[in-house]
Each structure stands twice: as C-alpha cells, then as structure tokens.
C-alpha cells in the first residue's frame, strides 16, 4: 500500500506491504536502525518511538495506522553535536551499558517527563516499567531521567 508519513521532520512517501509493522518500516525501509526489536510480545519497549508526540511501541502499530502521522525516532531528537537533554543526561549518569534498550528507553523517558510534572523516583520507575533494561538495574536510568526532567517539563522551553 502507498502512504505518507512524516519521519523526523521529513515527509516520506512509502509503498510497503499492507501488513507492515511501523518498526519494520522504520528499520528496513527507512534504514533507521536506532529503533530496536527486543521481543515479540510488546513487552520490552526497545522499539519505542513517538507517534504524533506520544511514545508508542512501534512493534504494535501497523504502519497503516500511522499514515499521515508524525513519527520521531531516536535519530530525530538530537545529534552528537547537539544532544537532546535526555540523551545528554543518559550519558552523564551512565544510564546505559550495551545500548540496545537505550533508544526506546530515551523515547519513553521523554514522553514521561513531558507529560508528568513533579515526578519522584518512584514515579519514574513506574513510568518506565514498559521498558526492559537488562544491564543497568535501572538505578542510573532513574538518575538520568530525574536530572533531565526539570529541563523537559511542559513549559520549560525545550522541544
């Protein structure tokens, strides 16, 4: 099927099988391999991207459902020269080890802090329970999200 999708700010016209998942279009057709697949039951969150500004597990979205929407992946939020505050916080607080869950975790964390004011550590843990990390034990991820939250809360002036 043919459809249009805005991905990281660029309008893309696609011709893909109708049963394609959003994650497969992102990885295989658009070659944006920062979004990962870590499970087959929508449990791990490694494939988390933003669809019209909200975090979704892109393994659970048919690309047809995303037709006309804006999709933002990890490649679209910052660059090595200009990191998004959440990316910078993950690095500063050593919130990643193997890096495989990291893009999904960062995308979920951005959604969490942008939509919830006054998060405490417990709330961050609950807010990220849809994303597995097997390396960090989550401790430093919570540190990073807490550090980035004030900069990203609604009205704080970023993205």
């Amino acid at each position: 099927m043919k459809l249009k999708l805005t991905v990281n700010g660029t309008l893309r016209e696609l011709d893909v099988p109708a049963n394609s998942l959003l994650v497969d279009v992102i990885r295989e057709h658009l070659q944006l391999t920062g979004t990962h697949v870590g499970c087959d039951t929508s449990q791990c969150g490694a494939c988390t991207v933003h669809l019209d500004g909200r975090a979704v597990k892109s393994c659970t979205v048919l690309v047809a459902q995303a037709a006309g929407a804006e999709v933002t992946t990890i490649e679209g939020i910052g660059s090595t020269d200009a990191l998004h505050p959440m990316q910078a916080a993950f690095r500063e607080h050593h919130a990643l080890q193997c890096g495989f869950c990291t893009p999904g975790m960062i995308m979920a964390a951005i959604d969490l802090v942008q939509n919830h004011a006054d998060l405490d550590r417990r709330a961050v843990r609950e807010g990220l329970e849809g994303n597995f990390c097997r390396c960090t034990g989550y401790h430093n991820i919570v540190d990073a999200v807490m550090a980035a939250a004030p900069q990203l809360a609604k009205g704080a002036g970023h993205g």
Partner: protein
Amino acid sequence: MAEAVSTGIGAPVRRKEDLRFITGAGRYTDDINQPGQVYAVFLRSPYARARIDAIDATDALAMPGVLAVLTGKDMAGDGLGDLPCGWLVKQKDGSDMVSAPHPPLAHDVVNYVGEPYGLVIAETLQAAGQAAESVQTEFTELHAVVDPARAMESEDIHAGVVGNLAYDWALGEQEATEQALAAAAHVTRLDLTNNRLIPNAMEPRAALGVYEQASGEHVLYTTSQNPHLERLVLAAFVQVAPEHKLRVVAPDVGGGFGSKIFVYAEETAVIWAARKVGRPVKWTAERAESFLADAHGRDHVTRAELGLDADGRFVALKVATTANLGAYLSTFGSSIPTYLYGTLLAGQYKTPNIFVEVHGVYTNTAPVDAYRGAGRPEATYVVERIVETAARELGRDPVELRRINMIQPRDFPYETPVALTYDTGDYEASLNKALEMIDYQGFAERKAAAAKQGKRRGIGFACYIEACGLAPSKLAIQLGAGVGLYESGEIRVNPTGNVTVFTGSHSHGQGHETTFAQVVAERFGIGIDDVEVVHGDTGRVEFGLGTYGSRSLAVGGSALVKAAEKIVDKGRRIAAHMLEADPGEIDFDAGQFKVRDSNRTLSFGEVAFAAYVPSNYPEDLEPGLSEKAFYDPTNFTYPAGTHIAEVEVDEQTGVVSLVDFVAVDDFGTVVNPLIVHGQVHGGVAQGVGQALMEHGIYDEFGQLQTGSYMDYWMPRADDLPDFRVDTTVTPCTHNPLGVKGCGEAGAIGSPAAVMNAVTDALGVNEVSMPATPEKVWRALKGQ
C-alpha cells in the same frame, strides 16, 4: 597533569562509546545488511525428545521466494562436525566425562523443545517464516527426562550415557570432612535449589553469513562475546571453513551475560548456508527463540552440611549437588558446576575440611552453561545460606558468626581446601563498611516500625568471594580446558602520535572503549580522545579469548600494559639516540622522554613521528612504533565483598518488597568508578531477579512454561529499589593494574543476601527461589 587527573585511572570518565548508542548510531548485527541478502528461519523441535522420521519440504520449496530447505542430514552429509564442549572434566574415578554428540542441526533425534533441525532460506523473512510452517516433519515422540533430581533413575537420553550421567566429579577430602562432621558440636543441614534462569540479553542473538566464492572467504557477523573463539571452534571442530578464510565480526553486541560466549547452531548454519545458496544469509532470533534456544543458567539441586565446633568455628562443609547440564554439553557447560563452583565453597572462611561431589546430568531441556557469575553465585548461595542458617540454629548473630570464621589479612596468601590460593583481601573492611551503610544497629527499630504496618521486615547478609580472570593457562589446560586463558593486546602508535589499541577482549556493554583508553592514555601521558580501542573483529585483532568471567581488565588490560611497556622501551631507545644520551638515562613521564637531570626532552608524539620518518634514528632499530603482547596471569583474581538486603513481606499478600540493598565490594584498583558502580547495579538487579522473580520452568513433558516476557518475570524498573554501592580496595598482587574484576559480583552476592532476608522475615530456614508471592504466602500460612 590536569589531563591525567580528569581522565586517568580512578576518574569517572563519561563513556566514549555512548555517543553512538544514545543517538541511535550503534551498529548491532541485525543492523547490518548485505547486497543480495536472504533470510533464514529455523525448523525447531516441538517435542522435548523425539525421533525425526521424515521431513517433507515439497510444499515449502514450491512457495514463492524460497531458495532452499536445509536439514541436519544435509549438514552432516557435507561433513560438518559437532559442536564441541571446550572443557573435559575428569570424573572422581579418573575417567573422562561422557560427552554426547552435539550436531549443530539435529538429524536423527531432537532432545529439547526448540532444538534446531533445519532451516528455510527465502528472499524475505516473511516468505521464510511461511515456508517453515509448511515443512511437514514426522516425529515419533519419546519419553522425555526433565527433572534433574530424577535424571539418574530415568531412561537414558543418549546412547552410551548410562543413567544420563555426564560426570560424577568431586573435590576435597571426603574422609576428613566426614570425620570432622561426625565430631562437630553442631551440624546444620540445608537442602537448596538454585533456580534455572534464562539470560535474556536485550539484543536477541543474530548471525549474518557471507561467502565470497572468488576468494573463498567467509565472513560471519554475529552476536558473540568472543569472536576469535567462535572462529577457532568453527574452523577446528565444526570445520565449516579454514581459520584463515573465516573472519568473525562481533560488532556492537547488546548484552551477553555469558549467553553469547557459546558457539551455537544458528551461526554455524548461516555461514554454511551462505556458501550453499551463494547469497548472504541472515538470521535474527525472535525472543521466543531466545527463551528456547539460548543456553540457560544455574539449575542445581543441593544438600549441604556445615559442622561447627562449640565456639562456632566452622570445622567442615560437605556439599552434594546435582547439576542440570541440559540436553547437550554446551561450550563451557561442563566446567561451570565443577571448577567454577566447587572451588569457591570455602567462601571467605577458614573452614579446614571441605568436600563437594557434583553429578552433572543430561535432561531434555535447553543446554545449561555460564550465566553471569557462572558457578560462583551457586557456591555463594550454598555457603552464605547455610552459614546464616547455622547462626539462627545456634542463636548467634549472623555477622559475628561470620566474623570469627573469616580469613584475616595476615593469613594471605591463603590456600583453601578446594584448590585455590587467595592472594589478598580484607573481608572485614567490606563487612564493616556495609554494616555502617545499612545501619545494622537500627534494624530492630525498622523491624518494629514495619510490623505496625502489617509488614514483616527481614535482614540478610552475604559475604561472597569469587574467582575471576580464570588462569593460568597451563593449570587450566591440565584440568581439562581446551583453550588457553591468556589475552592479547596490541598498541599501534600512529605517526602523528595518536594511538590505536587492539584487544582480544570484547565489550558488549562493559565500556572497554573508555576504560582501556584510560589505562593506555595514562601510561603514555596523552588524552583519552587520542586513543581508539578496536575489538570484536578477527580481521583486525590478532587473537583473543574474549570477555567472560570478569576477565577483561585483569587479563586483557594487563596485556595492554605489557604492550605499552614495550612501546615505552622502544621510545626510550629512539629518544636516547635523538637526544644523544644512553637509553638508561632516559625517563618517561607524563608524555615526555627526558634525559635524567637535564632539560632535554622529546614528546611522545615527536618520538612516534621519528619512528615512522627515521632520519635521525638508531641504526640497529626497526622503524615503526607498534607492539603486541600476550598476558597469561599467574593466578585468579579474588574480588570479595559484603551485600546486605532488607526486605518487607506483606502478610496479607506474600509480596516481598526489597526495601534496601547495600553492596560493598573489593575489586582491587578501580579504573572508572562510574562504570564499576554500573556493573554492580546491573549484577544486583539480575541477582534480585533470581531471588524474587525469575524462573525458567519446564513442565513434565519438557515444554517450556516460561517462554516469553508474559511468563518469565524479568525485573522491571518498578520491581527494584535504588541500590547503595561502595568499594574497599586491596589491590590484586599479581597483575600490573592491581585490578580484580567487577562484572559478576552483583549477581553473586545478592541472591543469598535477599533470600537470607526473606527467610529472616518469615522465620523459616528455606523458601525456594524465586520467593514469589505464592510461595511466600504459603510459607506464611505454614503450607
């Protein structure tokens, strides 16, 4: 010197590798694609044990886009060998263990659910998957042996393996131990199970095989912790390609925890299949395949007896363990419940008599091999659970009972009754710091406060020891290891003075690109951004044995120090010539070669340039500035520490909340505390997962009941508390960095600490791991 202070040994340098991971620019195996690539889907056994009677691929081959259906018979017909077990364990009667043949693809019988017996190759993944479902395989189901405790009385799985016994292994003095137990003032007995775990690195295993017909070269991209070992096994044993025509690349790898050490069927099959179909062949595991066919961990059943004298001093420890090895001996499966388990049973204590006997048994379950800690968590679990139980039985403070039995700093080097010589340590230093951090004095008050809320609060301790950086090669090979246990390193100083480092260690989250750069940069007095660390590619790195057993810095880092010394020695000779002095008069410090007691200096970069543009250069010296070294340690390293857990048990629901966790570890010299603390956090999370949540369960027919994240309870962010971690330092005495290794400690100490806390809260001696709400609720109700 400002540079050295900010990035040198001991500095919490932010990781160099992070920039690519946080921007989505990591390059994992599944991110790599090749022109003309096709896709493989494996045919897997639906039965725990069955004979393959016939495979009919007619329908599958007729489907659009299908290139081939290849089976175990095809692979055997092409002369490929079996997957070997790399450690030959000697039984207690001196005979060799019994190793059942392990073909990469099963051809006559399948022996666990998920075992691959063929693969379908098609133009697209979807086509391959649909065709795989159309392959008609006729099986005759056979009786499956699932329970390790009853395996020896069950039907034989493999012809020639009587009683499903791979080995009956023992270590220590049986008679002396039994006599000491008979004479002991008190004997504590404990039956324990160490639950089966499924490793679950977040990146599923993957492999991409490429064959270039014109050159005869094979390239295998795969999720490996040790690409050179993979190449060696595939070339020497499986004989899929000669070693010099096979390049193995392990690019960014998304976690391993042991499960990516081993040489598996799938990567073997794709490199073979790539040659057969003349196209690059890619396979990426679905998570369900990871659950079924990654090597699992732990799975012990143990009876332990600890004898104490009237003062509470340990006089003897006797341990009998049945270890489930799964359907086949995986790459290092035989060594985990023996040399990495029995040897650790002295723990931190001066127990004079220890005897351990291990029956390693085959069952119709996935192979069991190293998983984070690998044998050492199992040993720590036995020692620390029975010590805590003894304290309860005797009405002694568990801390004081441990303290009077601990090996003291004056006792080192300390030879244990189970074949190890500990080089150094200060166990009470870690214990004391941990007690202070947890506020042991205040526990009674916290317990009383919890009781008012309907919660039972418990505290549990684990004073663990581990042996890391398995070594030396000669001893390990005498004990049955099929490979050396050294590591290689190479340092190329480029003409412009920056440095490329090649290491045989592999990083799949550990941060070698930063830590190793810190070590080398400090040695040369250059910035860490002037050091690039290359790993994970047999085409670029000469040789290596990879990353497991917390060995990378202690062994791989030491190889780099050795190579760096050679660079400095050569640089000294170059500088001496240029500065018209004797090499013995040249000092090297902070990046400067200097004639002693003079102001004549040359920078590291100037010497490097001179080595490649040798105009003013010693006549007897080769140009260039590149050195390699192999480092073979003289002993293991012995990290040790104290972990303390506090839990609260909800009396109504049986839910256990881990409310505080303190870890104080002695890893020797710490190069990067940020990375070291992160390793402890991750290890503790996996250990807490083992204690409270994770369990790989097969039903009586050998069907895996926990084959997805819907069924296998892996810790999520809201299942865990913040962790409080610190270190004490006694530098390792026998490697140049004084480091011991930090990758596994978290997973070693924490299960015993948590379960001691749970049983303390409940007032019982044993609840089997994982202490799920149901089990705890039953314990509360006395069921």
